[in-house]
């Protein structure tokens, strides 16, 4: 808070022209003011954020308004719609909150601007998973579109992904998780240990996978590999032959009546599980929590082949400049400063800046969510609901256990076009 005020010459001239309001933004944007809040209320800065429902949460907008004075207008969409909006209506948002596999498609479209790493105050607090792909220095890099492969571009105006970290980031990572199958322990009646269990004839007509082709195909790949049908070169980037084989298998399973339904939205998956239409299905962790909150047993079952992971981040729209751009950096720095991280961690996701998030969580919460320890007291969701009773431990254990088990990341394949055709065959069959 007592740091000296630095000004960067190129920016300061513009800021002076834009008046006093922008000066605050410049100072904040250049990293001079470290103490929150820098209140922007006089400037009436509004940032429009579009993205997926997972992280477009009103509580974040409210806290942002209170801390920074920036009004955040959130629009929550599904992954596909978020990608479309980002590419086709670049003027309709200022911040794009999208997933990394989508980023692989979206960023080269040129509607986002790379982010200046030197303006990111907490860059060195970002977990290495997003910088070099490694959870720990020894860990291997998982298959698929690992976030670090699309995390940086070669230069300020480049849309070409860089192999090594540069000063230009495509998106600032915010949220990520490791996904697995959700089960109804009361109805499956046996131990579930592998992705292949979803194809057990015992569960005929009681299973589901998701019908978002780029994610569904990854689940199918996990199942195929678990059954020993195919050994993929890269599950996240299949060859045509691998796709053919995978889809043919899915079609056979579908014709044999293995699946009850294919879900596309969060709510659908919750309803399928809660109503007992399915007993085992691919699922997202908050959907599991939603089923549990209805008083129905539901487990996010760790499987021996590992997890299918995804990560999301915030990108800046191309048109942002001046005070608005500064405000956007300010917002992103605030996002990484811990409060949001704690919020996301407490929902069962992970913050990309764990170090700062820790300061906003109690020791018990940190132990439960991050270290796999039994909860000492009831675990409360950010909305104030009891999520877990005292004594419970998290499905899958600690952060390192769960993320150490990532088998692949959600991805966009080179044979994307062919994949969608094959997927349509599957649905039409």
């Amino acid at each position, binding site marked *: 808070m007592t740091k000296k005020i630095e000004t960067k010459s190129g920016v300061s001239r513009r800021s002076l022209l834009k008046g006093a309001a922008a000066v605050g933004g410049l100072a904040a944007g250049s990293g001079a003011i470290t103490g929150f809040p820098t209140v922007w209320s006089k400037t009436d800065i509004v940032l429009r954020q579009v993205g997926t429902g997972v992280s477009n949460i009103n509580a974040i907008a409210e806290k942002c308004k209170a801390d920074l004075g920036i009004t955040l207008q959130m629009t929550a969409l599904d992954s*596909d*719609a978020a*990608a*479309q909006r980002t*590419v086709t209506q670049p003027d309709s948002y200022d911040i794009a909150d999208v997933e990394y596999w989508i980023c*692989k*498609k*979206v960023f*080269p*479209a040129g509607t986002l601007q790379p982010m200046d790493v030197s303006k990111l105050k907490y860059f060195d607090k970002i977990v290495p998973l997003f910088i070099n792909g490694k959870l720990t220095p020894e860990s291997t890099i998982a298959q698929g579109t690992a976030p670090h492969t699309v995390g940086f571009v070669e230069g300020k105006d480049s849309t070409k992904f860089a192999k090594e970290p540069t000063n230009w980031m495509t998106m600032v990572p915010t949220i990520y998780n490791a996904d697995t199958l959700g089960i109804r322990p009361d109805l499956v009646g046996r131990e579930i240990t592998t992705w292949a269990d979803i194809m057990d004839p015992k569960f005929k*007509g009681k299973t*589901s996978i998701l*019908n*978002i*082709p*780029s994610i569904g195909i990854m689940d199918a790949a996990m199942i195929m590999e678990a059954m020993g049908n195919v050994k993929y070169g890269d599950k996240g980037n299949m060859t045509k032959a691998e796709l053919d084989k995978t889809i043919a298998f899915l079609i056979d399973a*579908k014709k044999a009546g293995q*699946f*009850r*339904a*294919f*879900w*596309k939205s969060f709510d*659908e998956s919750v*309803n*399928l599980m809660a*109503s*007992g*239409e399915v007993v085992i299905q691919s699922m997202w962790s908050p959907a599991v929590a939603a089923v549990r909150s209805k008083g129905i047993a539901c487990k996010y079952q760790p499987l021996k082949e590992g997890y299918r992971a995804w990560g999301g981040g915030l990108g800046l729209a191309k048109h942002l400049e001046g005070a608005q751009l500064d405000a956007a950096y300010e917002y992103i720095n605030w996002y990484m400063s811990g409060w949001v991280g704690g919020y996301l961690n407490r929902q069962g996701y992970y913050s990309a800046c764990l170090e700062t998030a820790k300061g906003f969580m109690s020791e018990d919460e940190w132990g439960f969510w991050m270290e796999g320890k039994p909860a000492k007291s009831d675990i409360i969701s950010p909305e104030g609901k009891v999520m877990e009773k005292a004594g419970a431990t998290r499905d899958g254990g600690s952060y390192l256990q769960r993320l150490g088990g990532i088998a692949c990341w959600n991805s*966009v394949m*080179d044979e*994307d*076009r062919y994949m*969608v*055709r094959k*997927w*349509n*065959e599957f*649905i*039409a*069959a």
Partner: protein
Amino acid sequence: MAEITADNAIAEPVPVAKRRIRFDSAASYLQALPLAIILGVFLVLPIATIVMVSFWDYDSIRIIPDFITLNYEETLFSWITWKTYLNTLKYTVIVWTLTMAIGFWVAYFLAFHIRTTTMQMVLFLICTVPFLTSNIIRMISWIPFLGRNGLINSTLIQVGVIDAPLEFLLFSDFAVVLAMVHLYTLFMVVPVFNTMMRIDRSLIEAARDAGANAFQILTNVIIPLSKPGLAIGTIFVVTLTMGDFITVRFMSGGQSASVGLMIANQISLLQYPAAAANAVVLLVVVLLMVAGILRVVNIRKEL
């Protein structure tokens, strides 16, 4: 798009007789201008764009202005497309038959059995009450009803009619057709009711005086005179069913495909040219169907 086409076919301007001087004809052009502009901007232009894009190329991140026919080749020469069209047509035929059967009798009841106009209007408005909630809510409210542990199954099991829950009730073609009939019957009722209300009651009296029984009056007087309404209703139902993807997705649990769903899948992966080619094919098919209906029944006579 399909719906607009149907409207357009109905609202085609009747040629104005050139009785007056040029000033009048200029005035009538001026009168037609706003609609022409609206249709041009919101109907012709978008369709032209879709047609244009359908010839473009694309990769996983961009669409590339070009002139290729690959999108059409992939659409027309793939068995998925044919299978999907067959499936969509199957839904259309079943839904059309059922909505017409139900819609006709509802309209008949309203038009000929209810004596007072006030009562007719009250009952007619009651028919439209479900439209105060959204399509999707009306649709998904079937799900807890039909599900494995839903109302129907639990009732039947309690009564002792069945031992195990009926699986076909939900996430099946049955569920899709049920929801579509529920959603679209009113589109049949309204035009049929409208035409029936215009039938000159003295024709029915004349038929009765001439010795026709109730069945003969129905088949020789009422059905022929209701044809325009049935045709308009058919156009509504056919275009809606052909383009439907959300009902198919929700009620089949994603197990069945429709043309609309195929297009939605492509759009969601930013494969706009492929989706556009598919949309053009769908548009052509639906227009041909509408043209076929219009050849059978001259609805303009009735307007």
